């Protein structure tokens, strides 16, 4: 083992350089954690998707609406227990910056099909009785200060009111999801409220159903149920595509591009940048310590020990910087989640992310240290003592 006192003293000999390099490592590792956590959040919905739920959508596009009559026909398919209409509403609260998802759905099916949606305040009965009632995820409720009984005016972007006024909802419940496939940021309201408004001309927008959410009967064969539904509408008027909830979530994620690849590319760039910063620091340190390397060798320290002095410096430098970045990522998890809020629900710095960051830190430390260490190992005593650094 190398003399660790020497490792530490050399590391902190030039304090400004040490702090700047460690600081840049900390920021880079924090960024890596952040990027990885965004991917984890995106993929969490896919991983947590229910096995007994199917999504029926137009085969052409998610933005092509299906006829209302399809609901009754789907409900009659063998293996289908429940069916719910589900439309993206796409409105905003007060101004466009206040974005969170709103869905119109069959209020009497929501609780049965999505048991993971648990009310933490208010009641399902109240939600189901009042046509203008809604339930709101606790992240959104907390962000905007919504409480049960409050009125929430939403400006319809996809479904504007014809008189230019807002859609007014009354909060009947605040929910928290027990699984990651449903975030805590959404507002659910009665499909009938939207349907009636469109029928009466009070509101305008695309007619039809965005998707049907199907809950299968216990023991039903998923593949067969999917085939039966697809076969039923093969002749139109709208051809459908039935997918599992996991496939649907994955498709939704891929709509914003190959996010994992994109994020990995940025992460790779960050890794290369911090590797170069650490390598530059270690090369300068190794050059400055050339004479010390000669002295250690002359005193009888082996080549491996001398190489270890530099390798441990690199590892310690990265451990400080990377450790600070990991601590920063873990300690700011709640703040970042709040900041991303309803735009990016489900942000979580998982243990896996932290371990990955620790692995990246170790890798940078090894790669940045191994070159200078090998150079020190191969240096002859005479050559090392001759150098003035």
């Amino acid at each position, binding site marked *: 083992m190398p003399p660790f006192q020497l490792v530490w003293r050399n590391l902190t*000999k030039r304090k400004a350089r040490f702090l700047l390099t460690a600081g840049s490592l900390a920021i880079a590792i924090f960024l890596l954690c952040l990027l990885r956590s965004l991917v984890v959040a995106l993929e969490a919905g896919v991983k947590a998707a229910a096995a007994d739920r199917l999504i029926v959508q137009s085969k052409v596009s998610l933005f092509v609406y299906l006829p209302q009559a399809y609901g009754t026909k789907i409900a009659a398919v063998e293996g289908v227990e429940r069916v719910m209409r589900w439309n993206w509403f796409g409105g905003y609260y007060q101004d466009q910056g206040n974005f969170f998802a709103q869905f119109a759905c069959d209020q009497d099916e929501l609780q049965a099909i999505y048991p993971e949606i648990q009310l933490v305040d208010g009641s399902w009965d109240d939600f189901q009785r009042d046509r203008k009632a809604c339930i709101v995820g606790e992240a959104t409720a907390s962000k905007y200060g919504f409480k049960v009984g409050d009125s929430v005016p939403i400006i319809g972007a996809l479904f504007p009111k014809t008189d230019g006024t807002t859609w007014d909802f009354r909060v009947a419940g605040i929910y928290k999801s027990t699984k990651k496939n449903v975030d805590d940021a959404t507002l659910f309201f009665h499909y009938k409220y939207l349907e009636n408004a469109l029928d009466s001309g009070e509101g305008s927008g695309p007619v039809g159903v965005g998707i049907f959410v199907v809950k299968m009967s216990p023991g039903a064969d998923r593949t067969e149920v999917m085939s039966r539904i697809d076969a039923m509408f093969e002749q139109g008027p709208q051809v459908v595509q039935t997918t599992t909830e996991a496939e649907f979530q994955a498709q939704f994620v891929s709509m914003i591009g190959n996010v994992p690849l994109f994020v990995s590319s940025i992460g790779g760039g960050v890794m290369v940048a911090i590797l170069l910063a650490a390598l530059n620091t270690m090369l300068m340190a190794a050059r400055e310590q050339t004479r010390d390397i000669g002295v250690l060798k002359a005193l*009888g320290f082996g080549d491996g020990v001398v190489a270890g002095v530099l390798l441990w410096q690199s590892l310690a430098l990265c451990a400080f910087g990377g450790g600070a970045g990991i601590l920063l990522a873990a300690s700011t998890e709640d703040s970042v989640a709040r900041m991303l809020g309803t735009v990016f629900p489900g942000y979580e710095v998982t243990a896996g992310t932290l371990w990955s960051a620790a692995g990246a830190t170790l890798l940078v430390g090894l790669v940045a240290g191994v070159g200078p260490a090998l150079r020190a190992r191969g240096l002859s005593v*005479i050559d090392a003592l001759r150098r003035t650094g």
Partner: protein
Amino acid sequence: MGALIQLRGLVKVYARGGETLRVLDGLDLDLEAGGFYALMGPSGSGKTTLLNLVGGLDRADEGRIVVDGEDIAAMTGPELAEWRAEKVGFVFQGFNLIPVLTAQENVELPLLLTRLSRGQRKEHAKSALELVGLGDRRSHRPSQLSGGPEQRVAIARALVSDPMLVLADEPTGDLDRKSADDVLALLRLLNEKYGKTILMVTHDHAAAQQARTIVHLDKGGRLGRIEAVR
């Protein structure tokens, strides 16, 4: 006493810019145990090269170097490092202390290669520094010491692991007369009181007079005369 160091047919050639320079040319020399030798000669006579070869810092191209009965030319790198740690103490012209360590820590360095406990190491280093008159400056860094004290710390480092052989390369070269005399007095003390064999390269005739024997090397690395001083 018998010959502690036996050099036979020692050849060292350096290749520089396509040319070869024969620094030592078949040198034969015996150095007795307990001796204090000053190695003198003109530039290019191979004084420092000889010191490096005897200390196992460099390899000879030809010849044998037997120290205390061991042929160090036949040793592997790790064996040679272990041998140096056990048998040799070095004092360099430029002191070569580790700048980030205190005097005490510099002196403790060679003891990290021994089986001594942390407490024993501290005690040994403290004693060595007291011996060279720097007991009260143990916590000073090299940059806080002037040349003389720096060289005395280097001598404390060279003797702390109780080596049989101390090799000094121009130990007074960077010092004023007063500091040089202090350093030479210390080397004499090591030789006379503690029985260390000392081989010192020097250009300084006054310094060489402190040794017991002066070995003169001629240009081209051949042995000149051997002069008994005291």
